[in-house]
Each structure stands twice: as C-alpha cells, then as structure tokens.
C-alpha cells in the first residue's frame, strides 16, 4: 500500500494530495529558513492562528453575498487579511510598549484564535451544517480536495518560492546582521515585512492540507533540521526545502495508505522523524558527535591537569582524574604515577613553562593567544622556536625525573 502511495498509484485524489503536499513542504521549508535565521520562528505561530477570524469572516461574507461559503480562494483571501492584522498587532505591541515579542505573539495568537472561535459559532448558528468545510481548516482535511484547490495550492506555493529565491540575498543579510544591512541601504523593515508576507502566503496555502495549527511545524522543523547538516545559509534553505518536500510527499503517501491516518499530523510527524535523526546523527552538529567530542575534551582536560599535578608532586583531588590517568597507564589506582606517567608529566610541565615564556615574549604574541591549557606546543611552534624558548628556561635539568 505504502509503495503504491509513494509511486502515486492510489488514485487521483491521493496523487493530488501527495504532489500538493510536496510543493507546500518545499515552499514552507525554504520560506521558514529565513524566519528561523532571523530568530523569529514563532511569529509564524501568531500568523497562522490569526488566520481563523479571517476564515470565519470570509465565509460569512461569501454566504451573505449568496455564494458558497467554502470557496477556497475566498477563504484564503480572508485568512490573509486577518493574518496581516495579527502581524501588525504583534509589531505594534513590541514597538509601542515594554512587552517583549514572546508576549505579543502569545497574546495575538490566542486572542485572534478566540475571536475566530466566536465567529465559527456564529456561522454554526446562522446555517447549521454548512460550516463543515471550515473545521477542516484547523487541522487540514484532504479528503475532498478538488483539482481546483490543488491548482491554487500549487500556484500559491510556486509564486511564494519564486519570491523567496528573488529576495534570498537581502533576507540573509538582514537575518545575519540587521544593522549592517541598514548601513548598506537595505530597508530592513521592508525586508522583514516581505518575509512575513511570504510566511503568511505559505500559511494560507497550507490551510487546506495541514491546517492552521500545524502549518507552523512545516515552517519551523525543516530549517531547524537542515541547520544540522550545513553551516551555509543558502544550503540551509535548499536542504530545508528538500526536507519539507520529502516530508510532505512521504507524509501524504503514508496517510493515503491506510485509514485514520490524518494527512496534516502524519506530514508533521514525518518531518519530526527527520529532525530527530538529524539531531542525533548529524556529523558535525549532531548530539552524538558533540557528546563524543565533549568526552574526548573532558578526558584531555583531566589528564592534562592530572599530569601537571603529578609533575609537581601535588595531590590529585578528583577521582575522575585518577581513573582517567590509570586507564591511560599513566598512574596507578592510588594516584602514584607510573614510569610513562612521570615522563608525560615532565613533558607537560615543561610545555607549561615554555608557554609561560611565550606569554612573556612580545614576539610571540600571536602564538600566546592560542594558549588554552591543552594545545601541544609543538603544534604551534617550530623546533627552532622551541629551542630558543628553552634557552630562556635553562635546560631540562630542573624537571623532576
């Protein structure tokens, strides 16, 4: 079943949904990247919740004009208008008052959502049964997706993507250093506004498939995941697009392969699975890599400290240090150094003295700043330089055997 779904053989509707979701995932991932780099990921949460009253109002207006309240284009327009109002409200609160952006986001998303809920009950009252299409916008509903809906989603996604590509350079500069961006004549307010507009566009496009509560996930998780794999911003955007696209496509396919697997949540969870894999196993920034690095580092610190203490006949205070020295064969369990330990200790102390000389010689200032207690002096100085430094110390006579 899943294979059939992945190869688009589960029928017309499933194919429409899979392709639409993939495209939505790509544009959400790429757009979300710039929000993430600007450290404003959760503004998306305010924007998406703020769409609800617009949806309700659009429905009421369309019905009162005698049309079909569930027209997707009309609902999208209404949601865009109220999301825009929500965005302006967030901005007004953070600029005009002492409240921080997090409070502004939380206030706007909950109040707008509350107002939206009020409007939904109004709709329920004015024409029972006809609001069925609206509940689907909360969590997405792909069951009755029309070709026309799919075209709107595809068109909206493609336009958003094109605009992001056009603006990517300016958005990157602003995200990295807004003050510098202003100094070179970029209107950062305008760029921020455009970024938010694009986020809003993605949200509106995604309403049908994943719904307004979960669209945030598609804007945030792909860039966060992509960040684990690269240090370059344009690649973050590209990877985020790929991750979003794959999540959308695979998630939609999984959802189509069995009953009671709602599309929106499955897409989000697929995306989350990719995130978890990246969090743990990404080669540089992943947790596993970082943990191994930290263990290695801690080991180096303790061994170095232990050796310096041994060299000076000082007691070693920490059990962990002694354990590590013992495991390297440098000391016995009771803290008495072995032959090899003595030699390494003498070398460590000697290097430490060399560093001290380096610190006091103005010629070596650049080298001096590299000191971190761990670096082997041979890695930063030539043999000749070390020999010269040793003349300042006066030979190895004093090193304890």
């Amino acid at each position, binding site marked *: 079943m899943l294979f059939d779904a992945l190869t688009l053989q589960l029928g017309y509707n499933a194919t429409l949904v899979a392709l639409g979701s993939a495209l939505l995932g790509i544009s959400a991932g790429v757009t979300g990247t710039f929000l993430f780099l600007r450290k404003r990921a959760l503004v998306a949460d305010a924007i998406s919740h703020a769409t609800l009253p617009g949806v309700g109002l659009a429905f009421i207006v369309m019905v009162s004009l005698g049309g079909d309240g569930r027209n997707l284009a009309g609902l999208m327009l209404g949601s865009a208008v109220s999301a825009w109002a929500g965005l302006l409200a967030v901005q007004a609160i953070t600029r005009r008052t002492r409240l921080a952006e997090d409070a502004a986001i939380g206030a706007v998303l909950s109040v707008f959502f509350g107002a939206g809920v009020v409007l939904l009950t109004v709709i329920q009252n004015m024409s029972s049964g006809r609001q069925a299409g609206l509940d689907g916008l909360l969590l997405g509903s792909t069951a009755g997706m029309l070709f026309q809906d799919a075209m709107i989603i595809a068109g909206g996604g493609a336009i958003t993507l094109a605009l992001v590509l056009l603006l990517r350079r300016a958005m990157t500069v602003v995200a990295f250093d807004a003050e510098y961006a202003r100094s070179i004549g970029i209107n950062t307010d305008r760029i921020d506004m455009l970024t938010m507009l694009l986020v809003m566009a993605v949200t509106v496009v995604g309403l049908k498939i994943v719904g307004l509560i979960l669209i945030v996930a598609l804007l945030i998780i792909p860039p966060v995941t992509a960040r684990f794999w690269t240090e370059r911003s344009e690649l973050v955007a590209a990877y985020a697009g790929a991750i979003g696209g794959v999540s959308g496509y695979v998630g939609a396919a999984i959802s189509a392969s069995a009953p009671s697997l709602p599309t929106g949540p499955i897409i989000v969870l697929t995306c989350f699975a990719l995130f978890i894999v990246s969090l743990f196993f990404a080669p540089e920034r992943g947790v596993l890599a970082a943990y191994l690095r930290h263990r290695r580092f801690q080991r180096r610190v303790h061994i170095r400290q232990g050796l310096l203490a041994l060299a000076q006949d000082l007691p070693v205070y920490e059990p962990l240090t002694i354990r590590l020295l013992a495991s390297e064969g440098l000391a016995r369990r009771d803290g008495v150094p072995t032959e090899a330990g003595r030699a390494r200790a003498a070398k460590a102390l000697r290097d430490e003295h060399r560093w001290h000389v380096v610190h*006091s010689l103005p010629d070596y200032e650049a080298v001096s700043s590299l000191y971190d207690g761990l670096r082997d002096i041979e890695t930063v100085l030539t043999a000749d330089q070390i020999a010269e430094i040793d003349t300042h*110390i006066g030979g190895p006579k004093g090193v304890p055997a």
Partner: protein
Amino acid sequence: MTHLELAADHGHRVAKERLDASPLAIRGLTVSYGEKPAVFSVDATIEDGSMTAIIGPNGAGKSTLLKAALGVIKPLSGTVTVHGKPLESARGRIAYVPQRASIDWDFPARVIDVVLMGLYRELGMIARVTGAHRRKALDCLERVGMGDFAHRQIGQLSGGQQQRVFLARALAQDADLYLLDEPFAGVDAATEKAIIDVLKALKAQGRTVVAVHHDLATITDYFDHVFLINVRKVAEGPVATTFTAETLQKAYGGRLATAQIEDLELGAG
C-alpha cells in the same frame, strides 16, 4: 628564572591550615564553554580579610572564575571550599554582586525591593518583611548614598546608581566574603568613589572583598592583593610583591605596552 622556581611559582603547595583559613579556596578549577577552556586548572587561595583584585586581559576568564567559584556556572573539574568547608554549607557567608548588564532593568520593582532581596537567606521563603527589615535595607542604601532613591522604579536609575543598588543588596546580606563582578564598569566617578569607600569599610570590619577589576591604574589605591589570570593563573599575592611589571607582562603579554606598565604604580617585584 630557573625551572624549579617556575615550578614552585605554579604549584603553591599550600598547607591544609592555610586552605582552611581561606574564605575562598579554589583547586584545579577548569571551566569551558564548548571546546576551549575559559579557565584552566586554576588554584586560588584568597587571604582572609584581604581586598583582592582579579585582573587579566579581556577573555582571560575573570568573571568565569568568579561565577564558577560560586557555582553559578558548572565547572568541568575542580573544588571550591569556604573556610575549609564545601561551598553549599557556606552560602550564607557569601554575597555576590553580578554584572549590572546581565539584568533586565525593566523589571517591576523599586529600589528597596531589590535591596530586600539581599535579606532572602535571613527571611527565608515566607517570613513577613517587617519594619526592622525595611530599616536595615534603607540603612544599606544610605551606606551607598542612595537613601533618597528607595521608592524609585529601578529602570529610572542611571548605570552608576544601579551598581550602587546592587552593592546595597550585597550589604544587606551581611556576609563575610563579598564577590563583585566588575563593580566599576561603566560607572561615574562619584559612584566609583562611593563603592570603594564602602568596600574599604568592609575590609576595615575584617570582611574579605574579591572584585574583578579592569583599571590597572587604581589597583594599588584600591586593593591589597591581586590575582592575575590569563586562562591559567599567572600569579597571586600581595600587591606589593605580586603586582609587578613581570607578572603583568606574563598575564597581558604584548597587549600591554611597556610604556603603559611604566606609568603604573607597581609593587617592588
């Protein structure tokens, strides 16, 4: 300098009695942000009743040393004792003055509320604040010359005034050991004078003061001991013997021009 002298300079084989007498003794302290140690294997034995300046170049780990000594940040290794006892059992004897810049000064509190925070260990979680507590807080404010500002919103204060309020809060703790993180950073001359007068009065009462300090020109006026650090300890001891051109050169390297050193009022060396 011979090798053995250098070794002795490092090691400071300190007798247990001296460790027990010290209001703050640090052994083998290493703190690291990420992969580069900010403080590496530092031993420090603060003299009881001294006024000690922690000095060293930018990024040398001065504030980090102070915070790790207090357990505010977790070290990678090392032990801290206060009069020979573990830090936790001696909290009540230590007052800490953090950097002013680390605070959101828009917090809804008045000056007196901040000073009353210094009475936390005395008050505990739920005891009521009485008139006596308020008088004590006001008295501490008077001592830093801020008695008239007790009911101001803290956000309305200037930088120097904020620093004095922080000092008043520490005074309210009535501690034996005062740890200050750059108390003179970005304050006006009047505040600097007010702060140093208070610190000297504390010393006169037999308390110990340790401050991260930037201005080498005032060391000899303000302090009697120095602790020089540049990731590792460079030297510690009385200003007269330790605050020398040689130790400064070692701590600051080429970053401190010889001419600058010559301008300083240095110890004998």
